[in-house]
């Protein structure tokens, strides 16, 4: 924002540029508000009592704020036949997303390292095929994937989901790291070889410590995708082992009794918080890393 302002400031007569700036920022503000509106509604609704929701305005702030819905969503809400809230599923998701992100990022980094610095005959073909993996629609792999998980004895459980997400994520993580390492000077690798460092020593000591931005990009990308995934989760992990997204759907879709919008909203917030956190904490590196990967040098 500051850089935009400082670039725009010296241009043109004072009055004109100020008007332009107001216009630009006005529009930006409007869109920002528009995009934030659903989040706002979710938050305020989750702090309201059911009565207030029924009578009041959707956009109004809660008259008597209560965290009761949050507590209920976390520990008491009924999903399917059990009424233990979403906490179990939340941990399912964590148990799925952490290893899946870590493994797919690590493997992507290794792939990128090999595809740029330890090239072998046919490396372009291998990379092409891995790129191709990025364009395969989720739905088309469901049946073969189910068969393979069955054969491996990983059907219907978190380990199976981890495997699915690692395999599916590899194409993307490899693409990110390969493009990043393409610009990494090869002379450093040569120097390290002469210095006596081996394949993995170079990777750990030279390559990985210089990969901060692209690791952040990959982690955000993978975390968001895997955490938010619904299709694989609902296909390969039902019941107790379902991830958060599937549980949230089941919670909202449960049609017994009164529809508790405030509990639904609180549960949805629980589902959204981890990705929001990741963006807030690492977001600035995200854009920087994307640029660093895309532009050589």
């Amino acid at each position, binding site marked *: 924002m500051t850089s935009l302002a400082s670039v725009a400031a010296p241009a043109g007569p004072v009055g004109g540029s100020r008007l332009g700036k107001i216009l630009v920022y006005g529009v930006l503000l409007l869109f920002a508000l528009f995009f934030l509106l659903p989040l706002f509604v979710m938050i305020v609704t989750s702090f309201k009592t059911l009565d207030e929701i029924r009578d009041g305005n959707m956009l109004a702030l809660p008259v008597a704020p209560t965290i009761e819905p949050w507590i209920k969503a976390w520990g008491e809400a009924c999903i399917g036949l059990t009424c233990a809230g979403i906490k179990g599923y939340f941990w399912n998701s964590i148990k799925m997303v952490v290893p899946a992100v870590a493994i797919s990022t690590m493997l992507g980094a290794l792939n990128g390292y090999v595809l740029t610095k330890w090239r072998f005959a046919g490396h372009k073909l291998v990379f092409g095929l891995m790129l191709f993996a990025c364009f395969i629609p989720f739905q088309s792999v469901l049946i073969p994937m189910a068969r393979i998980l069955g054969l491996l004895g990983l059907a219907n459980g978190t380990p199976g989901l981890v495997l699915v997400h690692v395999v599916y994520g590899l194409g993307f993580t490899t693409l990110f790291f390969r493009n990043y390492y393409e610009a990494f*000077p090869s*002379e*450093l690798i*040569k*120097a*390290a*070889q*002469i*210095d*006596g*460092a081996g394949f993995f*020593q170079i990777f750990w*000591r*030279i390559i990985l*410590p*210089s990969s901060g931005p692209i690791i952040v990009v990959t982690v955000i990308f993978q975390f968001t995708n895997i955490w938010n995934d619904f299709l694989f989760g609902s296909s390969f992990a039902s019941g107790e082992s379902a991830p958060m997204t599937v549980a949230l759907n089941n919670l909202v879709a449960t049609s017994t009794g009164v529809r508790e919008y405030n509990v639904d909203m609180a549960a949805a917030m629980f589902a959204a918080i981890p990705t929001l956190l990741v963006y807030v904490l690492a977001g600035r590196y995200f854009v920087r890393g994307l640029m660093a990967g895309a532009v050589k040098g």
Partner: protein
Amino acid sequence: MAFLEIIGLRKRFASMEILKGIDITLEKGGFLVLVGPSGCGKSTLLNTIAGLETISEGEIRVEGRAINNLHPSKRDIAMVFQSYALYPNMTVAQNIAFALEMRGVPKAEREAAVAEAARTLQIGHLLKRKPSQLSGGQRQRVAMGRALVRNPRIFLFDEPLSNLDAKLRVDMRVEIKRLHQATRATIVYVTHDQIEAMTLATKIAVLKEGEIQQVGTPYEIYNRPANLFVADFMGSPAMNLMDAVVAAGSGRTEIRLTREGGEIRLPIPSSVTADGLGEGRKVVLGIRPEAITDRNGADRTSKAIEIVEAQVDVVEPAGSDTFVVTRLAGKEVTARMPADADVRAGARVPFAFNLDKALLFDPATGLRL
């Protein structure tokens, strides 16, 4: 026995032959400079010594033992890269110590070695910095420190000064020479800069299109170039090369150069060793700018000073000298005169040719006669 021997080395990429049979030897403590225009294969040759490139044929020996099948880390060499190749995530001290660490040298010993190298290169105050916080010259020093700390059998330098600005380059050149004198290290150095080659080397190998044109001391390369390519490549300004014809003169064999409105007759330079320069044979006369002066500047010990009057084309004062350009035999000819020489463009002035320093080449083969 030579310390480093390169025997019949060939390097092919697919059907392209990059190095076409290289034979060089270097004695212990020698400073070999590989010089040539870009694309001549000099960097590839250096990389094959380092082990970063495989060779297709031939052998590389150090102290009589073939090393060409060894991994780079087992060859006991250190290399300074053109881009310095400092590890960006490590401090200067860590950069210098990295090779020792990889070889399992104990920490205390490593620190002592780093301190020693830092003292030699006067970079002690930089040890805690990251490479990104250093200037070009400082990075260069760190890169040299990284090589120095290993105390390897051979140092390899790949155009180490080409990323520095002109003044710093001269300083670092002196520094490298001083370092070589102090450590008596065996060095192979690649450059395209013929002045670096002349000033640093104990032995120069001139390469062109993957072939060695000449190997010799800087003196030999400069004063007795083996062929037209070496004569033209080494030296700045370049050697004057003029077409001439052998003819019988009054009591002597001479060479004749055509010029506007006549010809110049000069004796055969004393450097010519080939006999049977038949009448009418075409030759190329090569004479360096410093062997063409004004009458006063002529070398008094020379036995063959010839005065040629010619019209001055351009005068280029260079501070310490003045370069005077004229036209002879259809070519531009540069003479090196004292800074205070009274020469103006357009004037006809006498040029003193020192034929003792002149060379003849065969225009067909390019070889010196």
